[in-house]
């Protein structure tokens, strides 16, 4: 993975600040665009909408296979 993007994504996990995640994802998406892979870039940008758990780790009770 692009090292700048990885650092930003790690920062997102460490600080819990979503803006780092957004920046990291954008670095990856732009890289894909530069490589001529617009579909990959679109898919990567979509990652933002799938992931909202950073803000509520207090809901950490999980059950295995109960859904």
């Amino acid at each position, binding site marked *: *993975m692009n090292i700048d993007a*990885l650092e930003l*994504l*790690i920062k*997102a*996990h*460490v*600080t*819990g*600040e979503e803006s780092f995640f957004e920046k*990291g*994802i954008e670095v*990856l998406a732009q890289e894909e665009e530069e490589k001529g892979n617009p*579909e*990959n870039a679109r*898919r*990567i*940008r*979509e*990652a933002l*909408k*799938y*992931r*909202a*758990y*950073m803000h509520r*780790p*207090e*809901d*950490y*009770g*999980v059950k*295995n*296979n109960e*859904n």
Partner: protein
Amino acid sequence: MYEHILKPLKIRKKIVRNRLVAAPEVPFALSDDHPRMTEAFMEHFIRKAEGGFGMVMMSGLCFAPSRKSGDGASFDIWEYENTKRLAEFIDRMHSKGSLVLFEDIPGLMFEYNDYSVMGEKGFGMGPFPEDFIKDKIPVTKEILEEIAEKYAVVAKRLLKLGADGMILMTGPAGIDFLSPISNKRSDEFGGSLENRTRFLRMVLSKIRETVKDDMIIYLRTSVSLDEDDFGIDDEIEMCRSLEGLIDIAEVSLRNPHQTKPWEINELIGMPNDHMPELRTHQVVKQIKAAEIPMHISTIGALQDPEIIEDILAKDEADIVAMARGAIADPDLPKKLYENRAKDIIPCIRCYRCVDTPLRDRCTVNPTMGRAHYLEKPVLLSEEKRLKVAIIGGGPAGIEAAIIASKRGHKVTLYEKEEHLGGRLMYADVMPFKHSTKKFKQYLLDHLYEADTDIRLNTNVTRDLLLKEKFDKVIIAIGADCKDLNVKGSEKAIQAADIYEKGLEVIGDVVIIGGGTTGCETAVYLGELGHKVTILTRGEKLCRNTHVEYMRSILYPLQQLSNVEVVYFAQIKEIRDDEVIYEKEGQELSVKADTAILSVGFRERCDEALDLWLDGIETQIIGDCREAKDLLAAIGSGYDAAMNL
């Protein structure tokens, strides 16, 4: 220098040599059947005192006079033999310069297990199921007064034995009248905050009256971020009402949603890499800023000395407590005194130390729970130093090389790839493995510092080993990924190859295998926007790991709306763009631009035996002997180097 960390603190008649506290824990497996305080148990805590912690805390004493020793792995402090050992333990802790405090877990309250202390609902640890409390006897004011008196008796006992302090825990497993969610009493012990803290004040008043200035009283409270629960403002108001009664308030977070009282949610109190750093401390510093009239202790995956120094320098806390961090490296304070912060072994927050009731072990510290019989790796005399070959630059091989070099052996480490790290390479790629990444870097830094001859891109043969005339050989060549015996399996890539070989993943992904690697890969790719389907033949995910770590993976997995799981799926065929599987007698398919195999590992035993040389003592270690986890790899590397 870490001047704020290493600054002493006077609390009543006690001097704490620095601001670092080894937080309470109960290494269950280290006690015997009685249970009695074994040498293993003592040594586990003494290592932390030796390592320089200002205060070392121990849990697992049985405070209740009428309770039988053994319940909840507790030591009955009223039994003669235990008392003798406890006195010896305290003396040994003092001889190393640490203060020693004892925690009331399982709580004295548990003596009253037949009663429903909370009235309608709950005993002490959140809401109880109705059938659990239906036959309970309501606890009257008289009984609560009796309990408070008993705490005073316990305090007197501990004081006589030489303890420096007593720890009371509210919240899960302790005196939990605080939460309005669990406390439904309608008398003077329920309702308003003043009422809900009344019993705690009763207990603390009795203890303080007994111990006067001769013991530290340390109160552990967990606050909730749920606005209906005991929160930050409540904590501040409560602490103000406890002025003069307690000396230190430690605050952690509680999970308001736990449904079973005995199911303490470890994850909120013990953060992992999926949670933001300093989450608990953000709460603690608000309480400290409110200028409560006692010292405040912060906790929650704090181990980095730079962060701790910063917290103390900014006056956001007076003391920093750590449990897992102290297990990973009991010598942490000593390393700060000696200006060797880079040598601190990073905790990877894997929960192995708290989640193995039968074997208390630490992934990164192979001496944890074994300190009473392991020797320390000291430099050997010249004539005992050997020429050693270590084959394989994964975690087992690297650990073996570091320890062997530390003992003075002349080590050559061979690795067939162009980089070191082996299976740990995933930590360089997965953003939520940042603690493991630090540990990997720790290993590499110490390997490079050691006087080790590292040879990359080298395929080792018996001829090479013979030519170099090694005295001893350690083989740590790891494991191979297992293949799946189905049509089209060659179209799939191995999960490990994404991290180790940088293989590209495109489009919609199907992961075959619901073990830890499969699930972590799903989280990693899901976070990058791939639509991921896990196909698992079983009924549960992550069966190959322990419950706390499993939860830490499953939480993000379940939150990612682009990740799906199909249970009881039998794989039939892997095609170019789909995977065919059978479930409940039906043949189904799922789109797969990339199919990923994660069905386990196969030991490279035969390859290891091919390198065996008659007449040269050889050890086969790590995944090539038995494909297990990082804990086993690091432990076998350490042991092999000590056996040289």
